[in-house]
């Protein structure tokens, strides 16, 4: 797996492809949540956003989605500042898979995935919409659940359905917040493979992960965040060095980080 590492300039680079986040700062009330987060997420790569609980990973994602009020800093996507995009444009270019899986009405899986097409304006009558929905359902491996009400699914099934929803938008960039937390080993691989394929097709993927071995295996680029600030970014193996692990997570590594790994077994 090649690492598309770019130098950590910490300046808004309007020429760059992919996501460029520069000096994000945000507070909720008097509490400082982000105090200087900068990183890049290159196009065609899976970027892992890593860090301990409460580091500010989710806030970084929400900031990139325009969901954090009173935010300072510059976020550019493929050379365009997000602040300059209209709500509609942003919705078409950015997809979000939030943590947890709240669905408020017992709608069917297919109807839920179709919600991903809302930013494109038309009801799913257009061929393009139907194809995007189909492709997303296949990619997330939920075709067999198509007609089931979402509220009757297990947590893991629902996560994959919500992933299909995010994929259906066919955005330039996908932000996923701990997407594999509730999944069994096979579906962890399924979902991470979806991200890898998405990146290979020229999209940008930013994913919050807690499984560091998974990050080493699947991410081309890693960003380590602690206490609301970037510690370092670069190739995952470098970012997750012994020193950083000890400092940020308070753990030390026994053996090598990706010594145990699962593969999809042949049928």
């Amino acid at each position: 797996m090649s690492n598309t590492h770019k130098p950590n300039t910490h300046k808004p680079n309007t020429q760059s492809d992919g996501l460029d986040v520069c000096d994000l700062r945000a507070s909720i009330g008097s509490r400082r949540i982000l105090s200087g987060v900068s990183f890049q997420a290159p196009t065609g790569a899976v970027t892992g956003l890593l860090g301990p609980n409460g580091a500010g990973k989710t806030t970084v994602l929400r900031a990139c989605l325009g969901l954090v009020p009173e935010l300072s800093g510059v976020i550019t996507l493929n050379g365009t500042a997000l602040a300059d995009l209209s709500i509609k444009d942003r919705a078409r270019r950015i997809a979000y898979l939030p943590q947890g899986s709240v669905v408020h009405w017992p709608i069917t899986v297919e109807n839920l995935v179709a919600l991903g097409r809302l930013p494109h304006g038309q009801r799913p009558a257009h061929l393009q919409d139907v194809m995007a929905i189909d492709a997303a359902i296949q990619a997330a491996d939920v075709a067999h659940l198509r007609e089931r009400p979402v509220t009757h699914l297990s947590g893991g099934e629902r996560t994959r359905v919500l992933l299909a929803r995010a994929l259906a938008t066919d955005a330039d960039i996908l932000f996923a917040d701990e997407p594999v937390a509730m999944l069994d080993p096979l579906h962890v691989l399924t979902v991470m493979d979806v991200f890898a394929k998405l990146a290979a097709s020229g999209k940008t993927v930013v994913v919050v992960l807690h499984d560091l071995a998974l990050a080493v295996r699947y991410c081309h680029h890693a960003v380590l965040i602690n206490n609301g600030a970037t510690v370092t970014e670069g190739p995952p193996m470098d970012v997750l060095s012994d020193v950083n692990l000890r400092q940020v997570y308070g753990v030390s590594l026994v053996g090598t980080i990706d010594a145990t790994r699962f593969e999809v077994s042949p049928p």
Partner: protein
Amino acid sequence: MIQDLRLILGLSLTLVVVTVAALAIGSASIPFDDVILALCGQGDPSIVAIIQEIRLPRVLVGGLMGAALALSGAALQGLLRNPLADPGVIGISSSAAFGAVAALFLGFAGLSIWVLPMSAIAAALLATILLSILAGRDASILTLILAGVALSSFATAMTSLLINLSPNPFAMSEIVLWLLGSLNNRSMLDLLIAFPFVLCGVILLSTVGRGLDALTLGEDTAATLGVDLRSLRRRVVFGVAFCVGASVAVAGAVGFIGLIIPHIIRPFVAHGPSRVLLPSALAGAILVIVADLAIRTIPAAQELKLGVVTAVIGAPFFFHLLIKTRRAMR
């Protein structure tokens, strides 16, 4: 979607049939042919008078009110993502009633025919805004219902205060009877007063479907799907206030329509928050016209009030829904 069209068509046909039946049936039964003739102003002048001046306004006001209340309920439930959010249950109707009673009590209602509905709408608006603030961003069912109870009790208390202070027993009984909710003696003028406001409300609520669909995934995801949440919230709140305020202004406080109807419709439209809107409006109109027809034809010493009948049926239904929802939430 074909399925939705079929449902809408079926409900529309039923609405027409029910309307004609409500015109024909009453203390004096009028044959179908004569009803149609009378609608065109032909035939026996006494029949024309009964149809055009007594029964037609009553049926139209009832249909309009039923549609407005059911649509409001469906939209509010979509916004708050809560099947128990009915304008009656959460105190919007009683606030509107308070607005109307205040206008009556203070004598402003006599200034212009528009004062009463405007006052009801203003109170409904205030209540809806207050409620969305009280219930907060992520309104749990419990918070919402409790906020509604608080609001409803306050509005009822203020209304009671006005009744208590009313100068003569005649005015008092007038207010109390009006509060019970009835379509008795409605005229074309009532329809004329309510219609523009309900129309405004319906137009506002007809724009919120996509936003409500997106809200199925919660507020954050809805925002990332390109929904302007503030605008959506404002449109629902104003739309509901117009619909409920105008309904209460012409027919008193009739509750539970917005609770029962969307609940019945939802399974037929695969629970889609936008798909439930139009069929709910049609079914709401049907329900109120049928309920009013039943009230007119059931022999009783005193004519039953529409608001009383919907409450007697609606409150146990509310219990049923509450138990069901609570089980689902666990």
